[in-house]
């Protein structure tokens, strides 16, 4: 049931913008809880890597006196990866196109993360 509800949130998130290519909810231990990923993308790797990036991001933010981490943003040649805490036990990862409107994406992610946090 919860897995279906998580999938539903991710489905809405993916549908909110044509610029979002994939999304997933991952435990802080790096295990995938729900995912809307394109074929060919390894769920286990996406999950573990996302959690690892957020963990490093937490540490970096503290060490460099930036306070509590809000988000990790990776910008690549082919687009963005955005990772955000969804409560204390989960991470939401979104993969977006290179021409994505980040302001709108961040807003959609924030809303999705809040819904996920409430569900968990």
């Amino acid at each position: 049931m919860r897995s279906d509800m998580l999938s539903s949130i991710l489905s809405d998130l993916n549908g909110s913008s044509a610029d979002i290519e994939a999304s997933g909810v991952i435990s802080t231990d790096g295990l995938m809880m729900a995912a809307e990923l394109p074929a060919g993308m390894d769920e286990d790797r996406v999950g573990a890597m996302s959690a690892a990036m957020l963990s490093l991001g937490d540490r970096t933010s503290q060490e460099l006196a930036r306070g509590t981490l809000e988000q990790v943003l990776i910008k690549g040649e082919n687009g963005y990866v955005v990772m955000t805490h969804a409560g204390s036990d989960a991470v939401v990862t979104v993969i977006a196109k290179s021409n994505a409107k980040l302001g709108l994406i961040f807003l959609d992610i924030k809303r999705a993360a809040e819904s996920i946090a409430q569900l968990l």
Partner: protein
Amino acid sequence: MSDIHDFEALTRYAKSFTGLTAEREACLLDVSAQLKPMLGAVTDEFYARLSKIPETAPYLEGRLESLKKSHLAWIESLFTGPFDINCTELMYKVGDIHVKVNLPVEFMAGAMSMINNELISLVINEFSDDKEKMTLVLSSINSITSFSLFVMQQSYQESTVAEELDKFLKISGMSRVLFTNLANAYEN
């Protein structure tokens, strides 16, 4: 080798490299009574030499007598056996202890070389009248000291990697569970 050590596999692996055969194991037991009374002198000479090396001397300060006692027990065990997985496990733990006291890795190979030099002199002195026996004893001692070094170095390598990993996890804030899941995700 993982956290749960397969000492049976390590024993087999070490013996295959070092040539510690059943014949050589039997030889070590055979010469035990003759050589054991002389091993105290080997230990003394070993530590006398170590004390003269500037890099090793600091590790001996205030601990010489207890180190000599442990060393003598170990060198006697080379002629006692059994040369089984318990022996392997013991040598593995010795390697781990060396890491924990931050002993540089080259000390193990250097020390074993010094010990072998002393034992070679001893064997030549005792068995020069019987070349065949002398050859067998020398090769048996070479096998058991090499076996000990092989296992200790294996342990040393694994303990060092484990320590480095602990440091990385502490610095990065990553949990061990997350690290394991990350490693598993990239196993294939």
